[in-house]
């Protein structure tokens, strides 16, 4: 993956607007966070291959970046994004890696199920 280029990522997000797209959205502290540090409250969530349609999608911030997708009846949001990639299948992969390079957040869009 490459460090995020805001203009290119914005263009890529916009190409998915106003059509049915599959989303993978995830945040994680890892399954061992509370094991290694008992004072750490671990929380996370993920959704894979939900079908959404957004009318407006924006990337903002100065890095790490935030992305918001405006749905007809709601929002999708992710923060802490640092890297991006377009796969051979044309999928947009956005990820946030922590200071050790571990994945902390992922937001991905695809025309086909992941």
């Amino acid at each position: 993956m490459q460090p995020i280029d805001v203009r290119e990522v914005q263009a890529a997000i916009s190409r998915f607007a106003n059509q049915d797209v599959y989303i993978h959205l995830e945040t994680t502290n890892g399954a061992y966070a509370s094991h290694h540090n008992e004072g750490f409250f671990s929380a996370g969530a993920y959704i894979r291959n939900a079908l959404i349609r957004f009318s407006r999608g924006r990337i903002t911030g100065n890095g790490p970046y935030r992305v918001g997708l405006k749905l007809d009846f709601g929002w999708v949001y992710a923060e802490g994004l640092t890297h991006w990639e377009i796969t051979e299948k044309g999928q947009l992969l956005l990820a946030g890696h922590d200071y050790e390079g571990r994945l902390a957040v992922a937001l991905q869009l695809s025309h086909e199920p992941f």
Partner: protein
Amino acid sequence: MKEKHVLVVFPHPDDEAFGVSGTLAQHIENGTPVTYACLTLGEMGRNMGAPPFANRETLPLIRKKELEEACKVIGIHDLRLLGYRDKTVEFEDEELLADRIGEIVAETNPSLVITFYPGYSVHPDHDACGAAVIRALKRLPKDKRPTVHCVAFAKNCEQDLGKPDVIRDVSPVIEKKLAAIQAHRSQTEGLMKAAKKRGGDALEWLKTERFWTYKWED
């Protein structure tokens, strides 16, 4: 004691490497066949390599290849990939999961099964995996069940379970074990680099493998 057949059941590629690869290599050198059933491909791992070379979509294929390489260096010829998804094992139907494991038990007829101790293995997939193995074996009459050696590392495991009753010195096969760990490059490279940097006896703990023999209640 020479085992007839060893069946290992873990949920993630690399679960075998740190805790049991020395034991497996010793069984294999001793002429005992080993079957490894791995429930997922670790699709949701956070480690992407150090520096990162995987992404969320390429990680499963990379980890599959790493697992195959690890099996090769340990000497495992029978690897079963069960096709579950990382971080979802605890949400599967327990009976169906036990059915899948039960089929492999029936086919391979192991004298020893190695898995995680349910309730004492930190990661929800580990606990669910161990619980499914126990559920599958409980369906057998008590005198037909293989011995089960469990890996556990929850903070309270010694408090609740006592000291591990099986302690194996795997220093004679430590090179194979290190090679198995290194085969899981996307997951272990950062850790191994850090250990090397610390130097001294940072890797000493790998030379001993500890198990709790599962005690059947009924």
